[in-house]
């Protein structure tokens, strides 16, 4: 039972230790995710690779198209090998492919060409992954280029075959045409033997002339006939009668008007006379009466004259009306006669029309006959053209014979050109020369940046975090809180002292590497110092923050490990970051250890410019400094420490 209680106590202690619990859960998940990804496959994706040399020629485009399609590489073109190699040393590129200037010419002539690949041999896993990926792509490209040779040969042969087929088709067509022409000629000759075209033409011409003569005579007869003259007479007589009727009508109307006017005058004279007689009967003046009598007499004389004239006009009107009746009767007779004449003329015209139609039909028949004769003539003409065609076809046949000769020559040339290529070269046209860029004197050379980065990380984390925890556990933090500004001073002093210790540590590592492993001295000592200072500032800041939140030294160590171990996975220490899943790329950029490892790699191995990593560390330090200030402000409550 006691052992059970002891086990229970141990389990309870573990359950109450939250940092340990987090480590127990987080570590396996993390290891599963990243180790699984790293060891599960070594597929690389989108690695920046510089390309120098002709890239747009037909063969190089095959190679780079294959490299691009592999998605393992992100190809970046460079005009200068020097610039590409500078970027390579600065860590911007993972490899550089250098294509020789005579690449296209060499491959075009069926020779092989050597492509140089500059690789980072300080990262063996990445190097192998890159070379494996490139090797398979170059192998594929080589196959593609070989395929292009074979395809080219096949294309040439296919074209030759096509030309021969076309020629055979042309020959068949010519033969068919000739046979067709021959059969047409036979038929025409058969038809021609039965036809006297000249005689037929002459008889048709004389018949046509006769028809024309008959048509003319009918037309002449039609124009000079008695019926036409009678019609003209009737027309003129009708016109004259109509004119006379109109004249009689007009005169009659005038006379009626004059008669009405005279009757009006007579009525006026009667009224005047009556008036004068009334005046006369009423006047007593004799003189006036006498004068009135004279006037009345004058007016009566005038009245009588007018009456006489009116009677004359009445007689004339009666005569005109009689004349009008006579003329109307005459016009009616003319119209009846005209109708009868029109009927007779129509009958005659119909008869003549039928005759003319007959003649026209005859004429049409003659025209058709003439057309037939024309066709016959065309047949003769076709015979001539067919004869000419036969000549042309014969000429074509002769020409095609020349083409056959040319085709044979071409075939021989193609076969000679293709068989001139060396089969071994065609089978593997591309060769690769791997150029390791960095010298390795011992096994330490390439791991030195990682050794420094890991050493700095653990020493800074642990020194800083434990130092802060000790301030809390020893209650010295209470004294520091009592002194204005002392806690801030203490934090700055801790970071500064850890930075100095880090410089000593890095110096010691380099001296040991130099003395025991013959590692070369770094060419840029100032950059080593600057890199160490920046690394220590960042890592110590992380340690300080851990220390403020950790309750004990063991908690600080656990928390430091909790942060350090993921960084070991992602910070280019255990695995090359490029071999880890793509989704970790952004996370890697956020981790200070990645930049510290890269910085020391550039300074100690590639001899490039680590400004990108320095800037990243500078930004990280500024952010961490702000976090530290906030942490110090928040952790000033004395209650947490007493």
């Amino acid at each position, binding site marked *: 039972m006691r052992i059970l209680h002891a086990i229970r106590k141990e389990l309870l202690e573990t359950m109450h230790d939250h940092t340990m619990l987090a480590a127990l859960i987080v570590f396996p998940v993390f290891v599963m995710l990243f180790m699984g990804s790293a060891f599960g496959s070594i597929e690389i994706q989108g690695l920046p690779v510089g390309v120098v040399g002709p890239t747009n020629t037909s063969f190089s485009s095959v190679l780079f198209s294959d490299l691009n399609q592999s998605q393992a590489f992100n190809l970046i073109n460079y005009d200068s090998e020097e610039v590409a190699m500078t970027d390579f040393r600065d860590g911007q590129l993972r490899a550089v492919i250098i294509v020789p200037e005579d690449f296209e010419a060499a491959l075009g002539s069926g020779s092989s060409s050597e492509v140089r690949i500059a690789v980072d041999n300080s990262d063996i896993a990445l190097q192998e992954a890159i070379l494996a990926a490139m090797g398979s792509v170059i192998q594929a490209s080589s196959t593609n280029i070989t395929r292009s040779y074979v395809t080219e040969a096949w294309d040439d042969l296919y074209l030759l075959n096509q030309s021969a087929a076309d020629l055979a088709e042309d020959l068949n067509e010519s033969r068919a045409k000739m046979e067709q022409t021959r059969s047409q000629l036979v038929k025409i000759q058969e038809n021609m033997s039965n036809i006297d075209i000249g005689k037929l033409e002459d008889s048709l011409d004389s018949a046509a002339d006769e028809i024309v003569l008959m048509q003319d005579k009918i037309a002449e007869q039609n124009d000079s006939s008695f019926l036409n003259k009678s019609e003209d007479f009737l027309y003129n007589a009708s016109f004259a009668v109509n004119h006379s009727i109109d004249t009689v009508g007009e005169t009659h109307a005038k006379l009626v008007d004059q008669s009405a006017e005279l009757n009006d005058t007579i009525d006026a004279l009667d009224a005047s006379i009556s008036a004068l007689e009334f005046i006369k009967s009423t006047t007593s003046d004799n003189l006036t009466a006498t004068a009135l009598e004279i006037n009345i007499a004058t007016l009566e004389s005038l009245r009588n004259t007018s009456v006489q004239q009116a009677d004359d006009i009445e007689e004339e009107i009666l005569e005109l009306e009689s004349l009008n009746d006579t003329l109307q009767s005459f016009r009616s007779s003319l119209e009846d006669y005209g109708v009868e004449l029109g009927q007779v003329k129509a009958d005659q015209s119909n008869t003549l029309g039928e005759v003319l139609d007959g003649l026209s039909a005859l004429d049409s028949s003659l025209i058709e006959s003439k057309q037939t004769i024309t066709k016959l003539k065309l047949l003769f003409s076709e015979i001539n053209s067919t004869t000419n065609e036969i000549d042309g076809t014969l000429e074509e046949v002769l020409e095609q014979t020349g083409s056959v000769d040319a085709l044979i020559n071409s075939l021989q040339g193609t076969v000679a050109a293709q068989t001139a290529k060396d089969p071994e070269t065609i089978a593997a046209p591309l060769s690769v020369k791997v150029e390791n860029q960095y010298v390795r004197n011992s096994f330490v050379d390439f791991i030195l940046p990682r050794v420094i980065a890991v050493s700095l990380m653990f020493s800074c984390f642990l020194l800083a975090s434990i130092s802060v925890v000790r301030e809390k556990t020893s209650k*010295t933090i209470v004294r*520091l809180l*009592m*002194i204005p500004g002392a806690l801030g001073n203490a934090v700055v002093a801790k970071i500064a002292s850890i930075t100095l210790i880090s410089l000593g540590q890095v110096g010691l590592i380099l001296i040991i590497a130099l003395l025991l492993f013959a590692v070369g001295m770094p060419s840029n000592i100032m950059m080593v110092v600057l890199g160490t200072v920046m690394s220590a500032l960042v890592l110590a800041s992380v340690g300080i923050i851990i220390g403020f939140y950790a309750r004990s030294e063991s908690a600080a160590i656990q928390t430091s490990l909790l942060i350090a171990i993921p960084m070991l996975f992602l910070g280019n220490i255990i695995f090359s970051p490029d071999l880890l899943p793509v989704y970790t790329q952004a996370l890697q950029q956020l981790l200070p250890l990645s930049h510290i490892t890269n910085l020391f790699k550039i300074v100690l191995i590639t001899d490039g410019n680590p400004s990108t990593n320095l800037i990243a560390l500078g930004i990280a330090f500024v952010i961490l400094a702000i976090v530290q200030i906030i942490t110090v402000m928040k952790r000033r409550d004395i*209650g947490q420490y007493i």
Partner: protein
Amino acid sequence: MAPALEVKELAKVIGEKIIVDRISFSVDEGETFGFLGANGSGKTTTFNMLSGLLKPSSGEAKIFGRRVKDARREVGFVTQQDSFYETLTVKENLEFFASQYGVGREKQKDLIKKIISQIKLTSKANSLASKLSGGMKKRLNMGCSLVHEPKIIFLDEPTVGLDPVVRKDIWKLIKELQAEKKTIIITSHYMEEIEYLCSKVAIMFAGRIVASGTPAQLKKKYKLKQMEDVFAHLVKPAR
């Protein structure tokens, strides 16, 4: 002349719990003032507020007429637990805290020599603090609070857990400080310590000062012969 410490209606409330309930008192310069109280009575919280480590919820405290925040340079705070660097020597500890208070290098040398002598660690000046005995550590702890020559010193249970010999050493040191006219505020569970060292006493219970005066006045007031009986009498209703 302003009192060395003047407290008015000082209170501390955490959540809904009243830790210190509007206490008021004053301590004159050169006086030794004792705080008596059971565990959880609010002594330490009051101490932390008076030393500027904890912000009061209400009320105010003034040290020589200035706000506590502005008079921290005048305050020496001796924590109940030792608070110095075990990995530094006695001298290094004193030098470090003196430097943090901004004591000049020349003055520092004489002052540290004097303090080392005062805390009777001359022979151990260059020994690591971790190597010191319990009594020595207590004395070093006090010494670290004196490196800036504070006018008022807060002592939080200075002799708790110490054997009688060491306790006597501490008392002797406190007496020396009294002789230097330092104002001393002290908390303790030990009645004889309070009676021996303090000219004035305040008894705290449930965050409030339930009685204050000289030990003689309190014994007379409650007609008891021992301070322990006075204390027991005052805190009895709560127990």
